[in-house]
């Protein structure tokens, strides 16, 4: 399908707030025209009046490949992503072996060639994620690593963090680190609150996150590094970042869809499928995160897709693995919040399209002439029940199992090709 036209679409471009009915003409993988006046050519894709937006970009996806293919392979992750309306994913480096060398970046790139969607590698910040030895950031960046991350592990040493920010800025690389003060958070499994105390779970306070958020903001100011604070979870962090952004535009942050949708009460009677890292916090934190998106303080929403087989999850709460899958619920969970009027549709989509595209230097994530034809057609209103067992992901550990959702992805088009169609 070299030429195709999406007709009867409500075209949404979060980059500039464009919202109009019309058609989108796709020629050889790129958008060649769009708007109400566009004449249909080639294959016709009828959107039936549904919304058509740029394909989502998920900056934080764990697959199990290489090393833990029983959790997820790059192939199954790609299929799940396409079903969820995601057209680009960035794979985290915490695999086995760790993606800390150009040959491993090449491995991901080769796997990506045959995938239905765009797959990018994030390089490790430190060798084997040891938190102290710098990796070949420049060479990996040349090999195609889009950003650099230490996976789930924080950089505990401030001197190392300073050097990472400083060194990576030579190559204008984005580095993403988890805000965790290890000495406060080690061996904890929940958010420190009345609730976790009643459950008798060891807990880390929200300031554990705040301390490192503030340290890294100060270091980013010192070094001019391009910093992404990865997965914030508390209202304190939102406030600190809001202040920092007034002075320093290089600072950005991300939040997972789980922390926008759930709070600590969802762990209820030790539901390990809602055991996450960072832990789910209080309702006030969730509301602060939502307003962080609505006000533009939080740049990016991620799925933080972390597939775990039931064997790693069905354990006593303290022993169970953290993490949840999210590729197939990311859009739906967000649209449910939009339907509940908790989230602004344009801001929600921007945090999943043009904002991550800008941070990663991608030319997708927008609807404009000559942009890649990575598009999704979704119904913002259709109700459905989330069932983990129906998911394409190899692992089924979703915290949304049994929940009522509003809105779902109907069609995914990546590089001009229809890669997912719900009606089939």
């Amino acid at each position, binding site marked *: 399908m070299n030429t195709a036209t999406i007709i009867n679409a409500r075209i949404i471009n979060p980059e500039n707030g464009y919202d109009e009915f019309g058609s989108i003409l796709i020629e050889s993988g790129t958008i060649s025209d769009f708007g109400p006046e566009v004449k249909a050519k080639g294959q016709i894709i009828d959107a039936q009046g549904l919304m058509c937006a740029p394909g989502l970009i998920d900056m934080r996806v764990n697959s199990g490949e290489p090393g833990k293919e029983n959790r997820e392979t790059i192939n199954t992750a790609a299929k799940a992503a396409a079903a969820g309306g995601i057209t680009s994913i960035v794979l985290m480096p915490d695999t086995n072996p760790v993606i800390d060398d150009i040959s491993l970046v090449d491995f991901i790139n080769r796997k990506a060639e045959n995938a239905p969607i765009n797959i990018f590698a994030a390089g490790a910040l430190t060798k084997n994620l040891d938190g102290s030895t*710098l990796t070949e950031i420049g*060479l990996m960046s040349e090999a195609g690593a889009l950003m650099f991350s230490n996976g789930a592990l924080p950089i505990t040493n401030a001197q190392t963090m300073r050097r990472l920010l400083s*060194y990576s800025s*030579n190559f204008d690389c984005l580095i993403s680190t988890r805000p965790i003060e290890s000495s406060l958070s080690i061996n904890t499994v929940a958010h420190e609150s009345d609730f976790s105390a009643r459950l008798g779970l060891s807990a880390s306070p929200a300031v554990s996150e705040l301390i490192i958020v503030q340290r890294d903001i100060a270091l980013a100011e010192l070094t001019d590094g391009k910093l992404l604070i990865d997965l914030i979870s508390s209202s304190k962090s939102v406030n600190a970042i809001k202040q920092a952004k007034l002075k320093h535009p290089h600072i950005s942050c991300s939040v997972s869809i789980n922390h926008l949708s759930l709070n600590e009460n969802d762990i209820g009677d030790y539901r390990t499928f809602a055991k996450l890292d960072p832990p789910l916090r209080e309702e006030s934190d969730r509301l602060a995160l939502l307003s962080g998106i609505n006000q533009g303080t939080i740049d990016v929403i991620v799925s933080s897709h972390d597939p775990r087989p039931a064997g790693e999850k069905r354990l006593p709460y303290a022993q169970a693995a953290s993490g949840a899958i999210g590729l197939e619920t990311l859009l739906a969970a967000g649209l449910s919040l939009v339907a509940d009027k908790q989230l602004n549709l344009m801001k929600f989509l921007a945090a999943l399209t043009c904002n991550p595209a800008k941070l990663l230097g991608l030319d997708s994530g927008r609807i404009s002439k000559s942009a890649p034809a990575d598009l999704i057609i979704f119904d913002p209103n259709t109700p459905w029940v989330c069932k983990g067992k129906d998911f394409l992901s190899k692992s089924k550990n979703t915290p949304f199992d049994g929940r009522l959702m509003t809105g779902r992805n109907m069609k995914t088009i990546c590089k001009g090709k229809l890669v997912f169609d719900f009606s089939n």
Partner: protein
Amino acid sequence: MTYSKNIIDNVFGGIRPASRALDKAATTIQGWYDSGTIPQKHWAGIISAAKAFDHSLSSEDFFPKQTTKLGAFGYPFKKIHCLSIGDFNRPDIETLLSLGEHYLDLNIQKNPNNRVLKGKTLVNLFFENSTRTEKSFELAAKRLGADTISMQIASSSIKKGETLMDTAATLNAMNPDILVVRHSASGAPALLAQKVSCSVINAGDGMHEHPTQALLDALTIKSVFKKISGLRIAICGDILHSRVARSNVKLLNMLGAEVRLIGPKTLLPTEAKTWGVSVFNDMKEGLEDCDIVIMLRLQLERMSDALIPSKREYFHFYGLDKEKIAYTKKKTFVMHPGPMNRGVEISSEIADDEQISLIKKQVETGVAMRMGILHALSVSQDNNK
């Protein structure tokens, strides 16, 4: 070193008689008279002309005399120590460079009658390993007629727990005239200079300065380009740990060159841009239009922990090879203070290319420049007595 005045006045009886006797324009003679020196190519003519005036001159009369005043632009050279480039003003630097230039002539440099340092003792006090600097000073001092000794620190009392101040006091009691000091701690030679009564030359202190290296680099550049002012000079690599870079920035700035620093951010001091230089993190941008590229050694021994990920990555982005030197888009010369890490900051194809590498010439110039420095300090010492 104004010997020309004596010759012109005492032998010929003034500028005009000398002009007639030598068949040179009076302005030429006036030039010699003012500058204090006479170019070597005229010496033979002057010696034979002097015979007619019943004066027997020899080439020795053209060597600067210890007792004579030293200086450029009418400012006498009065410095006793050579600790930092910042201690010298522009006339001092010109004096030192012209003395260095004087000794570049091997006929002068290796003249066995050099007596400038006759009867003086130079002590090489190297707390850090060195081959070229130490031997260069030793040779320079010997060629000027001095006695030299080298302290073997590895076998000395430092290893037995003596402090720097005690070593200084001990050495001072032996009455040396010039101490050449290298130390791993920034500021150590300056501390020594306060406690001893002889001249102290800083031969490299920690990450602070290496003034004699900067002077010999300037002399090398001057002997190739005949000028320094207006040249675009890039200093590349491990600036953070480099004492050579700190001295070179000061000196080349003073002499009117446009200095650029190029290196990864982790190897550049945070506030380097306030040094009067332009700072670049990318070789391609930084090397554009440079006349000289000074490569620095990656000082792995001074790095407490990893500032760069690997030598492979460092060479890929910052190692000078044929491809990167083409970024200058013009004829460029390469310098390196040595010792080189081949394949880390410089490729062998550059280091060994006689057309562009001045690295061997730097060593050669080093001896002449150090003779000049020793000469100047010694004269100034005598004048101070």
